[in-house]
């Protein structure tokens, strides 16, 4: 497994990242030379119109999709140099995921859903369930730990998903439209939980969104269009991190 030299304080450093889907002549170029840095501990939002490549970039950063060109170091790892299994284990140990549709298993309770992330790393069941309860408590859901997703509101389900994303203390959180399925007030609560969880763990959070109501939680906002980052602006979050 190779590591990549990365500037101290940077969690992510990508240069000239390209990603294509399909083959010529119907090839779609989803990323057209993305350059992106993410500072350790910052909340970085990727915003832009639908189809601009935000989610593709998130997948490339998380090592779920291979890039076709360019360099990308995440937490000091170049995912292209890792085997499929190593990449999966890297994600399991170092990255937390929050999905737009929560992706909670309906047959599991909230605490079981959260514990699953720890079980993937070989944590014993009893300890995993105990740590999952703590993670749920940290997002204000201690009293709903034994409820199934169907018994929770959308906002509560997303907070369970956040607990699942942070329970293993990852250094990077990748979030795909975490508030798009929620109303404004609930989205605010969810973002507060997410930012607080990231701050407490000094984790970097990269959030794909086109919900401008949550921009206030960003340290920086990277605007994407047509597969490129066209500009990066400082956010309005109170505890700002600087590169």
């Amino acid at each position, binding site marked *: 497994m190779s590591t990549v030299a990365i500037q101290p304080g940077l969690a992510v450093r990508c240069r000239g990242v390209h990603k294509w889907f399909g083959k010529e002549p119907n090839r779609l170029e989803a990323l057209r030379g993305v350059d992106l840095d993410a500072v350790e501990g910052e909340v970085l939002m990727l915003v832009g119109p639908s189809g601009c490549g935000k989610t593709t970039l998130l997948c490339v950063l998380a090592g779920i999709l291979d890039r076709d060109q360019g360099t990308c170091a995440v937490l000091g790892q170049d995912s292209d140099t890792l085997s499929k299994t190593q990449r999966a*284990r890297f994600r*399991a*140990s*170092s990255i937390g995921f929050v999905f*737009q549709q929560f*992706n909670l298993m309906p047959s599991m309770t909230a605490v079981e859903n959260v514990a699953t992330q720890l079980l*993937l790393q070989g944590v014993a069941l009893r300890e995993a369930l105990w740590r999952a309860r703590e993670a749920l408590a940290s997002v204000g859901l201690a009293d709903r730990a034994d409820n199934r997703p169907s018994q929770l509101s959308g906002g509560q389900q997303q907070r369970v998903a956040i607990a699942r994303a942070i329970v293993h203390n990852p250094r990077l959180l990748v979030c*795909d439209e975490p508030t798009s399925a929620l109303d404004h007030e609930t989205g605010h609560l969810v973002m507060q939980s997410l930012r607080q969880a990231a701050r407490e763990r000094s984790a970097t959070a990269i959030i794909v969104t086109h919900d401008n109501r949550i921009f206030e939680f960003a340290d920086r906002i990277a605007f994407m269009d047509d597969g490129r980052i066209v500009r990066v602006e400082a956010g309005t979050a109170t505890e700002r991190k600087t590169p």
Partner: protein
Amino acid sequence: MVTMRRHIDDTHCSEIGLLFIAWKMLSGDMLKYVSMIAGVAFATLLMSQQTAIYLGLAYSAGAAVRDFSGDADLWVMDKAVAFPDDFKPMRSAVIDVVRGIDGVQWASPLLRSSAAMRLPDGTPQRPTVVGIDDATLRGGPSVMLNGQLADLRKDEGIIIDQRQAETFFAFVDSSGVRRSLGVGDRVALGQSSALVVGICRLSEALSSSPVVFTTSSRFRSFVPVEDRQLAFVLVKAAPGQELEDLGARIARREDLLARTPEQFITRTEQYLNESTGILISFSIVIGLGLVIGLIVSGQTFFNFVSDNSRYFAGLKATGMTDGMIVRIVFTQIGIVSLVGYWVGMGLTAVFGLAIVGSGSGFPYRLEAGIPIGTALGVLVVGLIAGTVSLWRVIRLEPAMVFRA
């Protein structure tokens, strides 16, 4: 970095953890879970129960050989005889010829033929009448429930089987009550009267024809002249005599067939398998059980995996390796197969107990090899169903979880 790298390489899901995830996913859709178990249970039931019935039939085909052999070492018969009920007449002088062959300690005739019978209430029957040696009573039933074998020597004496007494020979007595034929009852057999002097127990036989035992001398009074045939000769070899050699000598002398009881049973089972199509019929049903089990449980498991593809994709995205997925999928199909198998075997056992309890004499032999063979069949079903479903999960693109 070194610390983190070691952490990455060493992380793996414990078996308990995988079992937990697998079970939670599986039990989340109870309808599919029950459907899969039902599929495997049905396949198990069909495979094991049909095999048990087949083995019961095969075993019962040789019932007469087991019941009549006593301590005889060889059955002598016409070359064309394929099974015990397939009696083909031999010359009556054969008995004397066989007795004269070197190495024969004793030889007893076994006469078999059918005769018309009328029960006390006039109900007609046509049993097989078996005439055994008057002097030695060899070839008679070995288990007597009422009376003794020696009672056959009483005037007009016959012995019948208990189960057949309750079924074939049941009649309405003078008081209007339907009851079994029993000791002391008289029937008309051939042109004579016969008295039931004993009740025996015979093995469950493949033949549906009832049997009446009598002595060789009385056999002649019950059976028409033209049907008074020597069907078999039971032979006891002299001490130290090789049965193969003796059998070969008897066969050469009279152009007959001499077989040990075990060989005769094997010959009967071979006839059953090769000439009746019974083996093919049962094989088809057992094969269908396997295929139906595969289709029902395999299809349902595939649907289960498809329905859970979003969650599998989520697990892959968050760090589940292909190795873990293989273990989860096979843990799930393993649980289904194991539960389905035991449910199916339980039903097979219950079916068997019900058959035995009914006293119907339906042949059913749940031998030790059946659960093992059925388990192999279920294993095949599970492996195929698991592999096909696994192929789908392994090919899942984890990025799909990001699509709304």
